[in-house]
């Protein structure tokens, strides 16, 4: 006899209420970051130098701007998922845990917004 409600079985979310979405999101963003991260470090090695003019010129190129947007957004997402697990593992007081999770989410959203703003500002300035 199965005691689970049909709705619960269909949703397949289990006791943690989010099923495999955290795990899956982490893996998919990891694969994306593997490609975007390698592109980023290879791009850094092809820079002639890291002066202001050179860096702005590099970010101004649409391909670089788009890939930087993808990199920073995916990185913020992957970082949020990772820090969430670290907080859940080490912070046990319920109130402090929820506060830390909210603070982490706010921080990540602020950081990624600043990154997107900066990349678009440079990319759209000409």
């Amino acid at each position, binding site marked *: 006899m199965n005691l689970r409600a049909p709705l619960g079985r269909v949703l397949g979310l289990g006791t943690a209420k989010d099923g495999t979405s955290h795990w899956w999101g982490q893996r998919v963003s990891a694969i994306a970051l*593997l490609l975007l991260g390698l592109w980023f*470090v290879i791009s850094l090695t092809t820079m002639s130098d*890291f002066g202001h003019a050179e*860096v702005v010129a590099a970010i101004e190129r649409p391909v670089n701007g788009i890939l930087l947007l993808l990199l920073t957004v995916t990185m913020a997402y992957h970082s949020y998922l*990772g820090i969430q697990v*670290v907080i859940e593992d080490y912070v046990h007081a319920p109130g402090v845990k929820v506060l830390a999770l909210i603070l982490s989410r706010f921080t990540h959203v602020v*950081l990624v917004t600043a990154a997107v*703003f900066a*990349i678009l500002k*440079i990319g759209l300035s000409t």
Partner: protein
Amino acid sequence: MSKSDRPLSPHLSIYRWPITMTLSILHRATGVAMSLGFVVLVAWLFDAASGEESYATFVEAMGSTIGGLMLIGWSFAFFFHLSNGVRHLFWDTGRGFEKQQANASAWFVLVAATVLTAGFWMMLP
């Protein structure tokens, strides 16, 4: 409670720390380190967008000895987390869990991360 003479397991005093445990905690440590490094990446982009003066301040901070050491640390964290991340994705397919395989892949990741970090800094302008 009566004390028994039966041995405790694991035998903590004669326990050899396996390399796989080092990599496990390093994966988390490098991940957290890069979350902090993400702040610096965003600062780099933001200062570049804000103009030459802010960018000069950023370059000065990162050009210091401490800044340089942090950049080297973050680059190692990046290559380590990337290499070990591939190891984890490989594990997700259900392969590579035998003791010898896990130990071998652990050393491979350590060597790969070190070589990639060194190569990266040699190729930088």
